[in-house]
């Protein structure tokens, strides 16, 4: 319909791997991701969290840190509590 050049989203693209040389890695160094100990699994872990609409992304991170007894955690890509950047008015719904 349109002449606009489309670029596929990263998850729609097919990624091919080019082999330069065949070489296997030595398993005695490091650790296979799935085989980490429980403690290591948490320390090198990610959670795909469903953010509720009330609290801010930062608050949510703080709660998770507390619940899991972590020293540190971070999130990728802020989802605003309710007032997205750029809005000029606070809506009362924000405080629910």
């Amino acid at each position: 319909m349109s002449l606009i050049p489309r670029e596929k989203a990263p998850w729609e693209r097919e990624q091919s791997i080019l082999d330069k040389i065949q070489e296997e890695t030595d398993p005695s160094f490091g650790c296979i991701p799935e085989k980490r100990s429980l403690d290591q699994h948490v320390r090198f872990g990610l959670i795909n969290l469903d953010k509720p609409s009330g609290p801010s992304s930062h608050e949510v991170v703080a709660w998770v840190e507390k619940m899991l007894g972590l020293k540190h955690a971070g999130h990728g890509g802020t989802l605003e509590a309710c007032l997205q950047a750029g809005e000029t008015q606070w809506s009362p719904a924000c405080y629910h």
Partner: protein
Amino acid sequence: MVTGVLPLALEDATKIIQVFLLTGKEYVCLMTLHDSVPTTKLLSIMEEFVGEIYQKPPLRAAVKREVRKRRVYYIKDIEIDDRLVLFRVGCQAGTYIRKLVSDIGEVLGVGAHMRELRRTRAGPFTEETIYNLYDILEISQAESQEKREELVRKIIQPMESAFVYVQKIFIRDSAVNAICHGADLAIPGIVRLTDGIKVKSRHHEQGEGFGGEDREGSNASRHLSTFVEVQDKSFLTNRSPRAVSGSRLGLVGLGEEQNKVEFTCNCGNEIKVIVNPDNDNEVRCEKCGQDYRFYGRSVLRW
């Protein structure tokens, strides 16, 4: 009213957050139009917002308020119920959806705002593997160690799962130590790699973290440049009244004509502009002082 996928990185995995920040996102958005609009017009204007668009970050943004070029991969599954429009949008990192919606409203000439938003995807993370805060509370309240381990293994993923859509270079075991101590990667150290990796000179790479999927070649390193190339700075204004309803004058060109737009001002003055990202997106007519702005790819009169 914003919910959905929020990838969290725990402890030592926090370092890979840069990867999330660069991955594309997908949202489901509910837009409210401020007046009824014919369906065909609405659809054709929403179509214009697919591809490269120009966007000025909103007032309360976390980044510098300069117009940025952002790529919208698709807008699909559009459902319309009078003034309520529901749609799915896939876009590059750093695209403000609330702004996108209000820009669509400006171009339509009726105005619009974002009513609700749910992120359905951030890079490899989709709603299929999503867990909420109650699930995490369950981990901390698990009655036995076995139960806790089972929940932890189910809910927490290894950090490597973030790299699915990121371009990768696999290196030799013998190269690992040198790379970890800051050496440049040499070709003999490469075992295999994914396609689409661009080589950049070292000088341009300064300040760049991961060469993620959303950083496109030279555009990435050119973080700041000019948007409207005009000699006289008096062209550029900072006023922000509302757009004159339905005053769409021209579209920023694509392909060969990329970044160029020509339109006629009310006073008859022909205006030609070369549009580049990362600066002010306003232009003023030399003769009558009328202001124009760019929304998505449209020129609007102010």
